[in-house]
């Protein structure tokens, strides 16, 4: 049933999917989302904030389903997905770092660690499945 050839990549994608599902369900549920923001020291979210958090939650769920599809397919069918997800993970990490720098509060938070681990995870998957763009593209 699992067609992705590399076992380590399967484990990494499963972990990322579980973490993504956890965050997705947190964001789509108003009570969970409010508690999450309070734990970050943010003000209680209004209806608009909850709407956009829920929106992100659904995107997380969709990406989680994408991960599952990638696990159930050979790596050759998922190369573009792995590249795109690595890019998304990198941009997300830069955004978290940027937000902290802008607030002049650079500290190691669970969100920062999570984003970092996701980027490392996708990078490992990218390399182990021979999906790095350099493997398939003549730069010169």
């Amino acid at each position, binding site marked *: *049933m*699992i067609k992705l050839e590399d076992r380590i990549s399967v484990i990494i994608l499963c972990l990322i999917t*579980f973490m993504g*599902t956890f965050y997705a369900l*947190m964001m*789509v549920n108003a*009570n*969970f989302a409010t*508690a999450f923001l309070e*734990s970050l020291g943010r003000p209680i979210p209004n209806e608009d904030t909850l709407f956009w958090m829920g929106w992100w939650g659904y995107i997380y769920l969709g990406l989680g389903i994408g991960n599952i599809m990638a696990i159930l397919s050979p790596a050759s069918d998922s190369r573009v997905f792995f590249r795109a997800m690595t890019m998304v993970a990198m941009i997300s990490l830069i955004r978290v770092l940027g937000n902290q720098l802008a607030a002049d509060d650079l500290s190691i938070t669970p969100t920062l660690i999570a984003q970092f681990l996701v980027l490392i995870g996708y990078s490992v998957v990218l390399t182990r499945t021979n999906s790095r763009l350099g493997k398939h593209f003549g730069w010169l």
Partner: protein
Amino acid sequence: MLLLLSNRGEIVMFKTDDKLIQICLAVSYAILALYGIINYFNPEYIINQYNSLESNDTNRFFLGWYGMMNLGAVAGLIYMGYKGLDRAYFAYAIPLAALFTIWAYMGQSALPEDQQNWTAMGLFVVNLVVLLIARIRGLGGLDFTKAVNMWGTSDKLCQIIFTIGLIGQALFVVQYIFAPSSFIDQTPGLEASDVAQRFVMGLMFFSLAWTIALLYQLRTGYSMSLIVTSLVISTMFMCTMLNFYASGSVQDGGNTFLSINILGNFIGSLIVFFRLQSQH
């Protein structure tokens, strides 16, 4: 989605050319997905549709529970869509659809006429009928051919996990019969009411359907469709439970027995899935 794929001709959905079966299961898919998504992601909509439902955490808790069970059944249907019809899935889904038809009738008929809403009951009946049509047309008569090994696998660990699952589900049914209100009593934060009690009866029906399906698999062999169903349900339960703890919504330590069950289901489903998936 199921119909579109079959019409393109790339994949014969449910590994059958019988359009009626495909349509019936697509209808079941739509009903289950509809209730799964609404119950879990927007319980307020359901609460607004039923005068008998108050907007409180207890009702939202149970609606979320039902939603996750429906989404798991959707995953099982999708799996069958690619791998072909599976007797064990119907051994779970048909009793469940029948039990929930009875459940909906009992719930609505007990209400005053001005509070009754028969929409869900109607959809449950449709779901039951389409499942019966698909089962009878696609797989013929009942078949209880004994598998070579208990649970259809020689993997001892999987056999133990399946057996624990069967005992756990059966125990929940027995517990409900002797003490129907015990689940609410044991779960801090849940308010006892007639509606909550009816929801607990629904939980017992889920366990009863799983017990029937597990007994069937004990004799005829395990079903990958139901393992996928269980994996999706248990993952959603696990993530939801962690969110309850992370958000501080769990009162007085919560229901320890329920937490252990959710954790056990999750780990058990993962082990069974990864140990048996290579054969499918």
